[in-house]
């Protein structure tokens, strides 16, 4: 990974391949994934991370495509991680977010990666955090995460991103009501995309009312956009850029801690599995009454 670290890494073809392969290794999981992330965390990083969430069909991908030229002008390089659902039956997935991208902005400074959720809950993939850390170390200045968009509360992206924009549409009042408690707490900015459709005014009022109820002196703003023709996008970007600039810088260390915790948790599980499989059987056939507490106690004694 160290080859591709630093701002220069963004432009280099070999570095891109290495980066892409690192993300594949992370997706495969296991000790190699943790090692890659660990190495990345040793690099200095200063990326901003923007989460884009919202229900399916709200226009998240189109909005990212419309934001790209602005983000590039501001940050110089942008990486996008777009998460789509895996089929729980076959494990396969159709990842279609690229279709919505306007490739005129895809010069060497845009990295785009489609990620299947592979059964992970919470709107992102298991590999998303580590991928963010790797992109950060490789010198990508802004990382945008597009969540699954299954319409439910997707909290995991809040733990990862410096700021989260929630994308909604006018005229979906009913499902909005159902979701508002969770959704309003998720976003730092709210976008009413497809604002040329009927119901914008009513949706804006409803949304602003809900946001006023939040226990904060400075509730998030609502931005109308039409991603497909760029209407309202510059205003939205200005606000997002300011939000990202002012974001508390604790997120990077939180992402780092999460990596450490996950490493520790995985190691612990591995050790425990080894303990269960050890020749000295931890559970004796003739003592079915042994409880979990006893088992753990003997495990920890063994570890000492």
């Amino acid at each position: 990974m160290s080859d591709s670290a630093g701002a220069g890494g963004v432009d280099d073809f070999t570095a891109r391949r290495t980066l892409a392969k690192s993300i594949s290794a992370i997706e495969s999981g296991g000790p190699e994934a943790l090692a890659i992330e660990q190495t990345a965390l040793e690099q200095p990083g200063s990326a901003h991370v923007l989460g884009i969430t919202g229900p399916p069909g709200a226009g998240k991908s189109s909005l990212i495509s419309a934001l790209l030229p602005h983000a590039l002008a501001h940050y110089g390089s942008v990486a996008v991680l777009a998460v789509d659902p895996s089929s729980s039956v076959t494990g396969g997935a159709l990842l279609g977010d690229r279709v919505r991208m306007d490739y005129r902005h895809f010069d060497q400074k845009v990295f785009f990666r489609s990620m299947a959720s592979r059964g992970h809950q919470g709107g992102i993939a298991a590999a998303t955090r580590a991928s963010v850390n790797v992109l950060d170390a490789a010198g990508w200045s802004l990382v945008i995460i597009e969540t699954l968009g299954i319409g439910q509360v997707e909290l995991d992206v809040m733990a990862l991103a410096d700021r989260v924009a929630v994308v909604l549409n006018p005229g979906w009042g009913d499902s909005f009501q159902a979701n508002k408690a969770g959704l309003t707490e998720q976003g730092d900015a709210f976008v009413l995309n497809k604002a040329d459709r009927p119901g914008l005014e009513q949706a804006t009022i409803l949304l602003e009312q809900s946001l006023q109820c939040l226990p904060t002196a400075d509730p998030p703003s609502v931005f109308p956009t039409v991603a497909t023709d760029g209407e309202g996008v510059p205003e939205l970007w200005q606000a997002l850029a300011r939000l990202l600039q002012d974001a508390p810088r604790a997120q990077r260390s939180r992402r780092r801690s999460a990596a450490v915790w996950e490493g520790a948790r995985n190691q612990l599980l591995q050790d425990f599995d080894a303990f269960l499989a050890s020749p000295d059987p931890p559970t004796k056939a003739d003592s079915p009454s042994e409880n979990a507490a006893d088992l753990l106690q003997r495990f920890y004694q063994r570890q000492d």
Partner: protein
Amino acid sequence: MKPKRILMAKTGLDGHWRGPTIVARALRDAGFEVIMIGMATTAEIVAAAVDEDVDLVGLNIGGHIDVALRAVDAVQSAAPEMPIFAGGTIPPHACKQLEAKGLEVFPPGSMLADIVDSANRLTGLSEAP
């Protein structure tokens, strides 16, 4: 087992989506992660194949064979180990040109089961028969 990833791209500007959609669906149902890119230029196909680090590139070809050959050459030069297969309205002379570059080719009338078999083989999930 980590699912294999396949990039599906159209080389031409002709938007018939029936064929590629049916194939993508069959591949997804067979457990692949299928990354759709739609109509894409050679440069866009290569960039996507690299960023997405796919195990296989699928090209839907509907126009002049030279446009497709350019995309094949570019992918093979950027990622020599990355296999490619192709489908679409490809006349016999063009099939031969693609096969000469090591591609498996599926003209109209190909069975989905054969396409899925090919994807399994090309991504190393199964042995050649």
